[in-house]
């Protein structure tokens, strides 16, 4: 059985504790005077945003880069994760001397609303009940996530961002930022994303959600209160989703049909194949750091994302006359957010008269390529930011030193 091999999470209380009091993070608290108006028609108040910063804000406050994380990411973009002890999720891209260079830029990475690493979400303690929100938490959207981030920037006294960067769900936030606050975004790097979530992607998300809800330990979303954890359902959701982040070629290159620690098939439902064992590991390690209800809420937020719908059905309207410089990037083997989706972004930006670059990177690593070692990606991001930095009057790196 699949369930038999999925270890239960280390500490069942780990998620809620991190949700209220995140370690290794800064926390901005917004009280009753600063509610977050949600698209669902309700206000979230009080709420908090956990975030990390790297580098130094310059005197002109003009070198801030907002990094937006993907579905299962968090604020720990370039430093050790307090729960898993693993390196930051984008250390290839963000850090001293990296393309998003923390010696030049002041990098801010907030945990999104609805997540579980310290920003208010379904596993946070509800002020009304003193217990975790669970499904009482309002459904949120990408717009809500971005609205909250804008409040964080106000709180930090940053009027204009040098750049907003992110991949996948992070890329959706980048597009939303450029659409909602064009004059606060000098440059934008939407990577491996789309202006709307496709039917196929909604379908994959629904499978993940159903896996969670089918776990008897989910308890209608009240597992925090009942002392259970739907880790099996969440692990299965992660396993399914993880396949969509890779590609046939990458899976074949990595695992082929190789057996796991054995010469012959066992004629059972053990993880005979390496790829099975790998997926089970992905599932079981994921549940140690992620909250099942957050997974439901954030996949929903992505499903609801449709930029054109807010602008009379035309994405171009969202970017008409935008002052923002864009660099859109896609990957050849990404079938979750295929190049055609990025091309649609580019067409809309062109129609809106935007200054846009677009590059497709040749790789077999699938959607996850944006998180991996891709030298061409790094060259492009570096070149784009250097060009934008020149236009913004930021000092070159040598001068900064």
């Amino acid at each position, binding site marked *: 059985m699949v369930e038999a091999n999925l270890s239960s999470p280390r500490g069942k209380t780990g998620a809620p504790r991190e949700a209220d009091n995140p370690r290794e993070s800064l926390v901005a608290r917004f009280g009753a005077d600063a509610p977050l108006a949600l698209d669902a028609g309700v206000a979230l108040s009080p709420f908090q945003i956990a975030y990390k910063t790297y580098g130094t804000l310059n005197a002109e406050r003009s070198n801030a880069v907002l990094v937006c994380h993907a579905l299962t990411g968090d604020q720990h973009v370039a430093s050790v994760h307090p729960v898993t002890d693993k390196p930051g999720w984008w250390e290839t891209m963000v850090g001293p001397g990296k393309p998003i260079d923390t010696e030049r830029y002041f990098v801010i990475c907030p945990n999104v609303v609805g997540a579980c690493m310290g920003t208010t979400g379904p596993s946070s303690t509800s002020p009304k009940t003193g217990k975790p929100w669970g499904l009482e938490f309002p459904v949120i959207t990408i717009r809500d996530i971005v609205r909250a981030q804008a409040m964080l920037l106000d709180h930090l006294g940053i009027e204009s961002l040098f750049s907003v960067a992110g991949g996948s769900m992070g890329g959706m936030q980048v597009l939303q930022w450029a659409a909602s606050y064009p004059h606060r975004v000098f440059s934008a790097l939407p990577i491996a994303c789309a202006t709307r979530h496709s039917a196929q992607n909604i379908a994959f998300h629904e499978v993940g959600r159903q896996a969670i809800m089918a776990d008897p330990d989910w308890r209608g979303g009240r597992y925090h209160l009942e002392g259970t954890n739907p880790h099996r359902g969440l692990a299965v959701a992660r396993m399914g989703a993880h396949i969509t982040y890779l590609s046939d070629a990458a899976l074949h290159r990595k695992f082929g049909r190789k057996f796991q620690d054995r010469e012959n098939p066992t004629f059972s439902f053990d993880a005979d194949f390496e790829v099975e064992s790998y997926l089970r590991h992905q599932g079981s390690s994921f549940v140690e750091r992620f909250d099942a209800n957050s997974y439901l809420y954030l996949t929903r937020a992505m499903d609801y994302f449709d930029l054109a719908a807010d602008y009379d059905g035309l994405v171009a309207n969202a970017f008409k006359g935008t002052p923002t410089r864009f660099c859109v990037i896609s990957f050849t083997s990404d079938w979750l957010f295929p190049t055609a989706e990025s091309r649609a972004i580019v067409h809309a930006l062109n129609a809106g008269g935007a200054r846009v670059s677009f590059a497709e990177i040749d790789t077999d690593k699938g959607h996850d390529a944006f998180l991996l070692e891709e030298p061409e990606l790094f*060259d492009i991001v570096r070149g784009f930011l*250097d060009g934008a930095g020149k236009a913004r009057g930021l000092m070159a790196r040598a001068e900064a030193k």
Partner: protein
Amino acid sequence: MLKRAIPDLTVANIARTPSGTRVDLVLVADMVARGAKVLDVGCGDGELLQLLSESRGVDGRGIELSREGVNEGVAKGLAVIQGDADTDLADYPDDAFDYVILSQTLQATRHPRVVLEHMLRIGRHAIVSFPNFGHWRVRFQLLFEGHMPRTDILPHSWYDTPNIHHCTIKDFVQLCAEIGVKMEKAVALNAWGKPLRLNAPWWFWNLFGEQAVFLLSRKG
């Protein structure tokens, strides 16, 4: 690092100035007003866009078919997108640019006339440069040697050339007349990259110009 892209996929060995810049690009750049908004269609690795931004302070954008060219251009900080002149120009709104440039790319498009029409819809001006297939060396090779011409500027064999719609200066002038385009300026360069005499007749240009650069605008 990126592997170096072929600077231009359609032509090669074009004469360069002492500072190493292609003479045809300098000519094109001279036709562009300072600070203009420019779209370079088939921009290769971005050599012209870089020249324009450095020497004329233009707001430049590029379209390039080859992935290597695009990625190298973007890595230089240029606004370049991957796209195809034959299909993607249709997506641009009217009057989006002051100049739309087609540098040494016309002969590689599937529908040169449609491309030219789009250029003058998107931009107030169009600048087109192309290798002249009426040059005496080309004629000589076909007439006396009996094979498809191969020159410094057109080095490909007939079976692997990306250039599918060669034209002569005369042909191009005729196309401009057909679609009602105003010719504002024309320059022909000889094999050494020197401009031919301005007052020379068209037949002279068509015979001795190895390449030509035209500045066009809409009539009326």
